[in-house]
């Protein structure tokens, strides 16, 4: 076990997979200088400019070229820099990468990983802060992954690179510096398996990505008041781990979904609706969702904070859920 950052965990995953499989390569802007956040630091020196490829600022072509390169036997890692910029390549991802296998009758697959960091960090405003994971979970053909810890970033990115279908891999920008223990040796985290980050029996909190940490902080605060919350980090959003979530809600009878994204039409709605359909009669309280209001993320901290789900909101929501129902 060594302690390292979320960023370095992703870097280690790329190194290990590129060493393991010559077909793996990465392409994106500025990768030769380490990439915009340093996730590819020194990798061009290790693997050469062919396999850590600098590209023009051509998001559509980065994504589209990866589709073509995946069809011809390579396994590209696409670096989109910010998930906001991946919107310049949405045809290439949604109409091409995600559809090709099905549309062409299963003649080939498109093994590619699209790394596109999401989320608010500091004063990055409306075009560098979004969490658009629900767009991708809506698209048949895509796997959607959102790691929250260094160990998961290592193990999930490695699994994503080995997956034979396109994976949208959403690291959270505010987590780059987060430290945690990284297992020695080969560490693979299976796609589609949630992590029960904290056990509890009073309420189930389902979350992913950066909000995992806010939920854990809130759960610790609630524990001091005797409320034990179970915190489930989905890790993979498609396919999401229904079994783990359902089993937990069956025990607690209460569900809170916490997401950083805009709440309206967010992925939390899918979790809430699925649980309501399947477990309505086992619920002790109405399901609650927490997410951002439907506003673009602002620049000034006082405004930016209006789009944040804070620890206090999570604590309040849990208290509301576990409060005895008013007698009618």
């Amino acid at each position: 076990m060594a302690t390292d950052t979320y960023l370095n965990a992703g870097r280690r995953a790329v190194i290990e997979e590129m060493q393991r499989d010559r077909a793996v390569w990465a392409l994106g802007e500025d990768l030769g200088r380490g990439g915009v956040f340093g996730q590819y630091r020194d990798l061009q020196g290790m693997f050469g400019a062919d396999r850590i490829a600098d590209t023009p600022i051509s998001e559509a072509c980065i994504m589209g070229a990866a589709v073509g390169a995946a069809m011809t036997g390579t396994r590209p890692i696409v670096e989109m820099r910010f998930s906001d910029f991946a919107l310049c390549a949405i045809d290439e991802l949604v109409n091409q990468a995600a559809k090709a296998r099905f549309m062409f009758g299963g003649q080939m697959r498109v093994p590619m990983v699209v790394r596109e960091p999401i989320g608010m960090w500091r004063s990055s405003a409306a075009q560098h802060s979004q969490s658009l994971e629900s767009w991708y979970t809506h698209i048949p053909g895509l796997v959607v992954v959102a790691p929250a810890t260094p160990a998961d970033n290592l193990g999930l990115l490695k699994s994503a690179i080995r997956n034979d279908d396109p994976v949208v891999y959403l690291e959270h920008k505010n987590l780059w510096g987060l430290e945690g223990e990284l297992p020695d040796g080969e560490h693979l985290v299976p796609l589609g398996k949630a992590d029960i980050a904290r056990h509890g029996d009073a309420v189930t909190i389902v979350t992913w990505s950066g909000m995992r940490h806010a939920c854990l902080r809130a759960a610790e605060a609630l524990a001091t008041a005797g409320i034990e919350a179970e915190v489930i980090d989905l890790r993979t959003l498609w396919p999401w781990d229904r079994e783990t979530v359902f089993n937990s809600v069956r025990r607690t009878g209460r569900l809170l979904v916490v997401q950083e994204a805009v709440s309206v039409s967010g992925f939390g709605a899918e979790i809430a609706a699925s649980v309501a359909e399947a477990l309505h009669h086992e619920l002790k309280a109405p399901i609650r969702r927490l997410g951002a209001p439907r506003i673009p993320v602002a620049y000034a901290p006082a405004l930016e904070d209006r789009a944040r789900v804070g620890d206090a909101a999570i604590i309040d929501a849990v208290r509301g859920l576990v409060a005895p129902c008013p007698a009618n």
Partner: protein
Amino acid sequence: MDNAHNLDRKRFGAVFALMHRIRAFEEAAIAAQKEGLVLGAIHPSIGQEAVAAGVCCNLQSADLLLSTHRGHGHTLAKGADPLAMMRELFGRAGGTCGGKGGSMHIADFGVGMLGANGVVGANIPIATGAAHGLKLQGSKQIVACIFGDGAINRGPFLEGLNWARVFDLPVLFVCEDNGFSATTRTRDMTAGAGAAARAQSLGIPAVEVDGNDVLAVDAATRTAIDDIRAGKGPVLLHCRTYRITGHTAVDPALYRPADEVEAQRGNCPIARLGAALAMAGMEPDALAATAQQAVEEMTAIAAKARDTDWPDPMAAFSDVQDMGDPRERAF
């Protein structure tokens, strides 16, 4: 066609047969659509066969091709099975894509045909990336990417061509210019001197040819591909042709004068090659027989496709992706 007397009769006899087969395939498909057998839209390339034939007869079977919504000719020319193609148009089992794609998504990876595309210009970055992948793997194959004149006004055209030059990729870009972007004349919506000038501005050699003269398309393609195989990077070929039918088979194309279409019918690329072959000594009977055989082949294929089963409905759930249940919460 000054050199008609020196024409390689064997080679161009085969090209002539291919052009007839493309024409006959599409005429059979149009007839079948009138009977309700072709389920979705089809975009015929009648009058444009010299581009498909002249380009693809210079590709080796291991080379790759990416095409457009108007891609039946390209696909046949790359060697796909016309029966599987017709089944695909009819939405039947045994179609090139098992009935999941239809005309606009025909692909046959077995013959290096990496897909038609329903999104104008989307094949350009994919072709560029296919060439990138080949180059990374040290392959000697090349990629041909055919797109319409309308596609040069989309961003991926710039991104793809720039990329192909930056990485010196083995890709032949072919602008199949039939004058129209759906119902709009492309020249009215295009600034500057067009595809070749745009390519040249990026340092990509570009050649303009009469796209209804298959001998010219063939010669220009051969030179371009020699350069590409020699490692000189991408080339763009701009082929000027004309779309005889409407944008789709059911578009009456009333936005253009009838005499313009009539004049273009007189410039038929198949007839022009036939004349050249006749001048080179091929018997009129042999030429007529080639045409007749193509019609018979495609008529029989359409009949056979009509007698083919529908796909197993459960195939709707296969090949979505390995992970997750595609039926999740749908019913």
